[in-house]
Each structure stands twice: as C-alpha cells, then as structure tokens.
C-alpha cells in the first residue's frame, strides 16, 4: 500500500532564482519525513514538485516503482493537506471529504463508509452536513486531514498544516496527528519551519537551507550531531551556542581556557565550538577547562532560568535551575560537557570530527 518516494538530483529554477539546487531524498515506505527549514529554503517547492503542482527543471522523481515526472497530480496516487486547508466553501463537509472519491468515480455505497471512517478518525462526524464557513480553524484543519485520509493514498503530503492554528490547538493536533499517522502507516512528507514539530513527528528530518538538503537523519542525530553550524543553530530553542576558538598544538583557546580540539584536520587557525545550552554547567568558582563569562540578562521562564552571557565578547546562552542565585552582572565559570562538544570549520560551517 504505502510507497517509497525517490527524489534524484531535482533542480528548480524560477526565472533567475535557483530554488532547489540538485536535491536528492529517499523516503522509505511507511516512513514519516519532515522537511524542515526557514522560509525560502525550498521545502515547499520540493513538496509541490513531488505533488506535481510545480514542474521540476531537471531531475527524476519516483513514487513506488513508478516514474512520475510529467504526470499530473491526479495520477500520482497522493493526497495533500494545504496550509490554508483549502476546504471548498461551496460544498458540505461530507462532499469535501468525498471529493477525491467522486473523482475516482466510486459508487455512493463505497464512498459513504469511507467518508464516515475518515470523519470518525478526525472526530468530525457531527459536522458532515455543515459548510466550511460555519467551522472553526481547528475544525477546518480536521476536515482537510480527513479529506486526505479518505483517499487512502500511497503518499500523504502536508504543507505546514498546523501553522495557522493557535499555540494550544497546535499542540493538541500535533499529538493527535502523530498517533493517527503512525496507525495509518502511510508514507508521509511533512513541511514545517517549526523545529519542535519536526522533532516530535519525524522518523527522519531533512534540514533544508538555501535550496540544499543539509542533513537527512533521525531527529536525535540531527539534534546531537548537526551536520553544520546552520543545523545546530536552527534546531533547538534556545539554539546551539557557537564560540570562535584559536587552534594551537591540538588545543583550542577560548575565553581563557584551553580545550582539546577536534581530532580531525590538525593544524593552526580558527575553528568554531558548538555546545547546546543544556549541556553547560554554571559554576561560581573557576577550574581548568572552564570558560569565563559575564551574565548580561537573567530570564526566569518558570521551569528554568535562561541566562544570556558575554563570553569573550561573544553571545552565549545557558539554562540553569529556576532557583539558581546567579544575578545579572555576575562573573561565572562554564563547564562544557566534554562528550557534547561539537566542532565546526569556521569558514564552511561543516562539522569536524
């Protein structure tokens, strides 16, 4: 039932703007892949090319064993959930969910149970006679998903489906979608710019930036071992900290401390150290390998405090316990968990090992 998706060296040029620069991706059958990136990174373009709504400039696309280049969307056996839901305003909810099935010329006796089943999964059975204008945003969202599920497609495409919901509803729908899609085992590509959504939902995340896929891996890998500085900075809230370091005989000097540098590519020059805020311990006394920093802002966020520091005149963020006595203006010492330190090439941003 579920099919894999193979994207091979796909390029897309709009006029003089190269939106996708030779992108390759292979999504296993039943896998949930999230395309994650800032706006303008090409993630929606890639999704729309897979859907057949845009035509690729070059490259190959396969869904299952079928080459789909040039095929119109209706022949690709896909379903899609749109950012603005696109629930047809002139049709009832029932007819909206039945739309694709009617296009397949199914009999009424086949359509009705499938519509009811999809509506049941999304808990909107009671809305079937209504029109889109009578529904709330969250309910329209459910209709859009039910409409896609009713198709029982080989591939489900979702374009920022939760971005128009308010924060609380988004949280609720996210959990519900995860349960539902895990159960339906449909191959899914999901586009979002929200890294929490990506972490929560994905089997694998494809991080996109400037028309490239930078990293395509399991969420925890992307989080812990970002392929470059951009990935580290984009994922995580607050994001990974970066500090410029001077390399010297296998050690790196930062803010008064000398840390063992990356094993690869020995030599002198600059490298960048990356460390996540939760992997730093704040101490009030100095020790070896501790960096020195001055606290500039303390933000109590409830579960923990977020400290903003200046380390060697560079911005640095750390989280501490909510009852931490550290105050703004104080000088502190930072212990970086050794197994969580990541090194990047300062020039290219690429990870060093």
């Amino acid at each position: 039932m579920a099919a894999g998706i193979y994207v091979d060296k796909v390029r897309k040029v709009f006029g003089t703007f190269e939106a996708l620069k030779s992108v390759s991706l292979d999504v296993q059958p039943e896998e949930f892949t999230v395309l994650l990136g800032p706006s303008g990174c090409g993630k929606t373009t890639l999704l729309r090319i897979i859907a057949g709504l845009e035509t690729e400039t070059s490259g190959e696309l396969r869904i299952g064993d079928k080459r789909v280049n040039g095929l119109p969307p209706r022949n690709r056996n896909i379903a899609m959930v749109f950012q603005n839901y696109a629930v047809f305003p002139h049709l009832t909810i029932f007819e909206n969910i039945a739309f694709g099935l009617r296009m397949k010329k199914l009999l009424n006796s086949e359509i009705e149970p499938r519509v009811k089943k999809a509506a049941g999964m999304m808990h909107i059975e009671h809305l079937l006679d209504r029109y889109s204008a009578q529904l709330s945003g969250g309910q329209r969202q459910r209709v859009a998903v039910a409409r896609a599920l009713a198709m029982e497609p080989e591939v489900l495409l979702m374009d920022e489906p939760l971005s128009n919901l308010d924060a609380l509803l988004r949280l609720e729908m996210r959990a519900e979608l995860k349960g539902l899609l895990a159960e339906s085992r449909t191959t899914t590509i999901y586009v979002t710019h929200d890294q929490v959504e990506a972490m929560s939902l994905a089997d694998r995340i494809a991080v996109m930036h400037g028309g490239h896929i930078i990293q395509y891996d399991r969420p925890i890998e992307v989080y812990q071992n970002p392929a470059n500085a951009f990935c580290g900075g984009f994922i995580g809230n607050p994001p990974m900290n970066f500090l410029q370091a001077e390399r010297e005989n296998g050690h790196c000097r930062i803010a008064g401390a000398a840390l063992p540098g990356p094993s690869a590519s020995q030599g002198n020059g600059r490298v960048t150290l990356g460390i996540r805020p939760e992997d730093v311990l704040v101490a009030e006394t100095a020790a070896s390998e501790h960096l020195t920093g001055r606290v500039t802002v303390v933000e109590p966020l409830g579960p923990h405090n977020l400290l903003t520091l200046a380390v060697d005149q560079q911005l640095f963020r750390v989280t501490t316990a909510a009852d931490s006595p550290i105050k703004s203006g104080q000088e502190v010492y930072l212990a970086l968990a050794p197994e969580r330190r990541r090194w990047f090439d300062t020039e290219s941003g690429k990870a060093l090992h």
Partner: protein
Amino acid sequence: MITERTLPYWLLAPSLVFLIALFAYPFADAFFIAFRADGQWTFDNFRTMVDDINFGLSLWNTMLLVLIVVPLQIAIALTMAMMLTKIRAGRDLVLYVWTIPLGISDLAAGVVWLALLSERGYINTVLSALGIVDGPALWLSYETPVALFIAVILAEVWRATAIVMVILVAGVQLIPKEYNEAAEIFGASAWQRFVKITLPLLKPSLQTALILRTLLAFEVFAVVVALGGRDLPVLMGEAFLWQFDYRDSGVASAYAVLILLISIAFTLVYLRVLRVKEEAE
C-alpha cells in the same frame, strides 16, 4: 454643530442632497409625467405607447438583443478571464488590450462598426476577396433587417464584453489558488475543476455581471442609431424619438417606466435563480 458624532453626516450630506435632487426627484417625477395627461391620472400615455406601430417591434428587438448579447458576452468574458489565469508573460498587455472597449461609448462603437460594415467598407472588401459577395453589398438597411440586427450584436459584444470580463477577472482573483490545487491533487481534470470549483465560487461575480450587463443592455440606443438610423426600433430609441422629435414627454416617460420595470423584473429573476447561498465565505 460639527462633532465626532455628526461629522460623517456632514460628509455625506452633499452627495445625499445631490442624489435626492437628481435621482429620487426625477424618478418620482417620471411616474408623475407618465401617468398624467391634461391634469388627470390616466393610462393614456401607455395606451399611446402600446398602440404605436413600433412598440411591439421595439420591445421584441430589445428583448431579443438582450437574450442573445448577454449570454454571448458572459461566455466570451469567462473565456478571457480563464485565459488570463494561464498567461504569464505579456498578461498585462493582453489585459490592457481587452479592457480598451471599457472606455468606448456606445455611439463610438456604432461608428466603428459602421466603418467596417458600410457598403464600401472593410468587411465587404474581405468578403468579396473571399468570393462571398460580389462587389459592395448593403448590410445596414431596412431591407436587410437580419444583417442589421447581427451588426448591432457584433458592435454590442465588441464594446461591452470588457466590463463583464473585468468583473469576472476581479472575481477569479478572489478565489484562493489552493482550491484549484486541492481539486487537482484530489483527481479533478482541468474541465472538472472549472465546473466544480471555479464556476460555483465565481457565482457572486457572475450574478453581478449578469445584472449589470442586462440592465445596460435594455438601454441599448446609440449603437443602433449609429448603425441603422431608425430602421431597427428599440425601446430606448423610441423614448428618444417621442421626446426629441415628437416632443411628447408623457409617452417618452411611459417608455422609461417600462424599461425600469423590465429591468427590475430581470434583476429579481437573476437574484432568485442565482441565489448566492449563505455558506459561501
């Protein structure tokens, strides 16, 4: 006193007064003139109107024109509006060209088509080159009523399709493109998308265009005069004749009242048939 509360009324007052003086008052006056003769309430003016030998013909011609011209214009304008959604390069130029007739008066349109259709005109030149007619042929005379009628249709379609197109293009632009994309994803062909998505969502604009165009079509006048003189009587032309040539405001006003009543009747029919349902966003 001008206060925050009365300010809007002060701003509205001039146009309100103006519209009462130049719409409401003449409107009431028209009925007064139409239904009075020799200081009494009477149907005399309407009797004169109906008994006139051109009355039946002018009513028939006007109706027939509306029934042929309006659907033709809607169809062409719809085609243009749909084509404009597909054009990328040169769209603005094409759109400008197609909207040019918007600024052309009915009199000017009549003269334009007169230049084409006159005895020694351009269309006859082409027809004779193609061997369809031999030499100059008369189209715009009382001896060729069908040809004259077709000429009026051509000129009206040429002139007044642009307004329908502009209304429909504005309507199409209001339809979010996601609806069409969603329909495409869920398996609808181009034709199915047009019938099942675009047309229903375009209903409010279609209604506006139909009403506006029909009302204006009932006032067809200068095109007919420019092309056929008095050889093709229409309602507005008769009203003009009774006023300008026969100096009988009573009968002329009776025609005006008749045109208004027919217009209202058609508007009500459209509103009923093309009901825009509550649910539409």
